């Protein structure tokens, strides 16, 4: 095995809220290889959102190290982080986060705009990405003219369009009915089979159980790291229900 795609070591993120230090993430370490499909699972307050923001280079850690595709994220400037997000990471959000006034195609083109790709090439690439998620016939619709599942597909196309090394999905099925959610998860399976590295952040153990690997967080620490089905079933000492 070569260098891991993601390598984090004793990563911590502390906030001070009203003079009190909240250890949202308190020393987390793991590696993720290229081509893996990993769920980060945990309940609300477990630190998974904080971890996702760090992995997505939207936030920087208080201490510890994070290497993404060979780059030491902690040492990068704000502009370099923006460029890193643009090239290495494809975000998929629970609420889709599409621009309401732009067509599906324009939404998908956006990452390429910030990369300085010519208009023609941008359009062709974005059309290709939309076709690959099965939306070849919805390119010029605006988000409010699309169903929830279609919107999430647009968002996935937008995440894919820049050919990033990592897809980072935050509760991608949270706003979808179970059948549509199922389609999206199957789409992730396809994408993973095609070689994409996927990190799926979720609070649902059932979803995590379907991933080849899961990392369970609790109170800002790793509770378990292993095959999805096993880790998802882990119960922490203070876990209450699901």
């Amino acid at each position, binding site marked *: 095995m070569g260098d891991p795609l993601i390598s984090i070591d004793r990563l911590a993120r502390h906030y001070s809220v009203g003079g009190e230090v909240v250890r949202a993430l308190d020393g987390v370490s793991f590696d993720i290889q290229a081509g893996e499909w990993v769920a980060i699972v945990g309940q609300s307050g477990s630190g998974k959102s904080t971890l996702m923001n760090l992995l997505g280079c939207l936030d920087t850690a208080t201490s510890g190290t994070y290497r993404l595709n060979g780059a030491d994220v902690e040492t990068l400037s704000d502009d370099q982080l923006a460029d890193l997000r643009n090239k290495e990471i494809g975000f998929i959000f629970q609420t889709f*986060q*599409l621009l309401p*006034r732009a067509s599906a195609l324009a939404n998908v083109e956006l990452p390429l705009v*910030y990369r*300085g790709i010519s208009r023609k090439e941008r359009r062709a690439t974005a059309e290709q990405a939309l076709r690959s998620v099965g939306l070849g016939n919805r390119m010029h619709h605006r988000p409010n003219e699309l169903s929830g599942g279609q919107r999430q597909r647009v968002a996935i196309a*937008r995440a894919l369009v820049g050919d990033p090394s990592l897809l980072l999905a935050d509760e991608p099925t949270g706003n979808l009915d179970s059948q549509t959610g199922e389609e999206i998860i199957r789409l992730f399976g396809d994408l993973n089979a095609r070689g994409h590295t996927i990190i799926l952040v979720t609070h649902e153990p059932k979803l995590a159980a379907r991933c080849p690997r899961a990392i369970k967080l609790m109170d800002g620490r790793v509770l378990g790291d292993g095959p999805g089905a096993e880790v998802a079933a882990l119960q922490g000492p203070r876990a209450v229900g699901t």
Partner: protein
Amino acid sequence: MRRAWQRTVSEWVEGLRIALSSLAANHLRTFLTTLGIVIGVMTVIAIVAIIDGLNASFATQIGNLGTHTLYVDKWQWINTRDDWWSMRNRKNMGRTELEAIEREATEALAVAPMAGRSVTVAAGAEELSGIRCTGTNQRYLETGGGSVAAGRFLGPTDVELSRSVVVLGADVADRLFPKVALDEVLGKRVRVRGAPFTVIGVMARRGRMLGMDLDTNVTIPFTTFLRDMGGKRSITIAVTSAPGRLSQLEDELVGILRRARRVPPEKPDDFSMNRQDQFLKLYNQLTGALYGVAVGVGLITLVVGGIGIMNIMLVSVTERTREIGVRRALGARKRTILLQFLIESSVVAALGGAVGTGLGLGVAVFVALVSPLAAAVTPGAVALGLGFSALVGLLFGIWPAWRAANLDPVEALRYE
């Protein structure tokens, strides 16, 4: 390198696209926001256009005074000091001074006396009153006195022999001899203040100067004037210099006049040198003040408009917090976001500036049509209006754009 350039271009194009689509999405809000800028620019453009028009018309009028001519007079034409009485008590200007200047002034190219009074001019049953009668000599035209349209001007012999000949102003010729060709007017007999005169020429039309009609006058030989119209009046002496030698001429004339008028060394001059640029100076002072007030009012309105733009941009930033978060997540740098909002505020302001410029020019043209005020549309005024409004948009857009650029992407994405 090429990539970086391409990226900059895409950022600008994207910024412009976002700005336009955001403006289009909020018609009413855009309109109301730009109203302040529109009114400000409109005010400035209209007033500047009208003042420029006045300036141009004034410059033309004042051009009737010779550019290189000094008008030596008992009176200061533009009385800046309140010494009317002291001027009233000055000795009259007369032949002595005229002859002294003609004899001694080496800087003078042409010297012409100008004696004047209001007279009645008649021909047949036609009688015109309130006509300005000027007594002068053959050099008068060289001092900036206009030109002859028909016949000839006064000659040296006319003056020497005190002939009863007259050159008619364009209006006087028209009114005394309506429907008569100019050449036919020559040789006609007219009565000036009752005395018979022969018409030898008709002046070309000159227009107005400072409310004075320069075409309702008659010109007769200086000597004839002194004989028939009264010789006690104070006269004006027009003296022309070579181009650029006006001050040398003035210095020389002061010496000649002080000697001719026997002014003791310790006393101030008891005469005045009038020149065209004094009028221009006074005029520019007056319109300059008006200019200042107009531009001041316009600037205040622009600042108010700018605050309006800042306000609406802050609203816009708040409304689009999540959009900003998304863009940051997808790889927009801070300065990309900054640029996006700066473009938006500048476009709003420049749009207002363009509309305001159009309206301002409309107002100026309208004023010019319905009133005697002139209006001149100068490219400078238009550039001023557009430039200033875009600048206002830029300045007042900085803070909202800076706030947008410095939003924490995590917070922005979570914003409800």
